[in-house]
């Protein structure tokens, strides 16, 4: 059997077709994000490291290219390479806390 994935290759769709399929989904998600930022604006206290990470990712959305998701996931990733001695939690937060 070939090692070729049958979905791979240059998309056969026009930008209009992509927008017809996915624009409304993207629209409501963008409005939800805007609402989240508005909610934060009205809240008190210092900025959470997760929100700092989210703000740091926003400029990547406006860059050209077709790998925005990967770029954002890399930005939020722990850049260290060695195992840690012990964890103080089982959970992950979504953004590496050391991100400036």
């Amino acid at each position: 059997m070939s090692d070729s994935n049958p979905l791979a290759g240059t998309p056969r769709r026009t930008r209009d077709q992509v927008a017809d399929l996915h624009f409304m989904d993207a629209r409501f998600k963008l409005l939800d994000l805007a609402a989240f930022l508005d909610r934060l604006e009205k809240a008190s206290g210092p900025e959470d490291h997760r929100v700092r990470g989210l703000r740091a990712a926003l400029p990547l959305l406006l860059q050209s290219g077709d790998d925005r998701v990967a770029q954002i996931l890399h930005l939020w990733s722990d850049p260290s390479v060695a195992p840690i001695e012990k964890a103080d939690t089982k959970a992950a937060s979504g953004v590496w806390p050391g991100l400036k």
Partner: protein
Amino acid sequence: MRYIEPHGHMVSRTTDDYQAMALAGCAAICEPAFWAGFDRKTADGFYDYFCQLTQHEPKRAAKYGLPHYCWLCINPKESEDMKLADDVLALIPEFLKAKTVLGIGEIGLNKNTRNEMRILEKHVELAVKHDQLILVHTPHLEDKRKGTRLIMDVLKAAGKVKPERVIIDHVEEHTIGEVLDQGFWAGITLYPESKATPVRAVDMLENFASQRVWLNSACDWGHSDPLAVPKAMQEMRRRGHSAAAIDSLVYGNPVRFLSQSPNFQDPQALR
């Protein structure tokens, strides 16, 4: 259309979910051992869990005409207690004799600690010793990229692991390329929030040429969807992909990987 759910934690689901999956075209379910949402205190607890996976759950699935397979391990979230982990590892060989066990999994890392690494190495040794397939869990969110790389280092250092007999699950856009480049299979997990959505999964499938990939729901006790794979299939149809291409991904690929275990039978051959 038919599909295989290669990663579902059915002990956490109701029988209604089995029925819904069967109605949606599911032809077989594979269930890796995982974390119950709390830390079990004794190896006896795992003994009972392995009995549930190898004896009880196949009977529950059979009521809906679904073959049920499983994978065995202690999850990395419970690997910090090395004594407990060693005791559980000692139980596994007895259960490997069950006819529905596919291999060792889902093993891997959670917070990328030294103890998790040591227990991962022991699981890999066990898999090699008993000639078992391996299913790998990669860490969540910000820990995923580092953990995926550490896991691949462990697998390569073991020396006798054949990458084509290992599936590294929960890949996302920033890890799928490295996993496929090193010869492993890649699993894309479809979660409502914390992993890949069906839409992003189909994007990845369109962007990466390798056929060594499967889709799964990893449905469990948390926010998850046992019908996530059929929803991804629907997304493929919306984009104009052919029925044959979809079948090849959601049925043919799991069969191709899982058939490396002598215990797995192509559901089509059972009908």
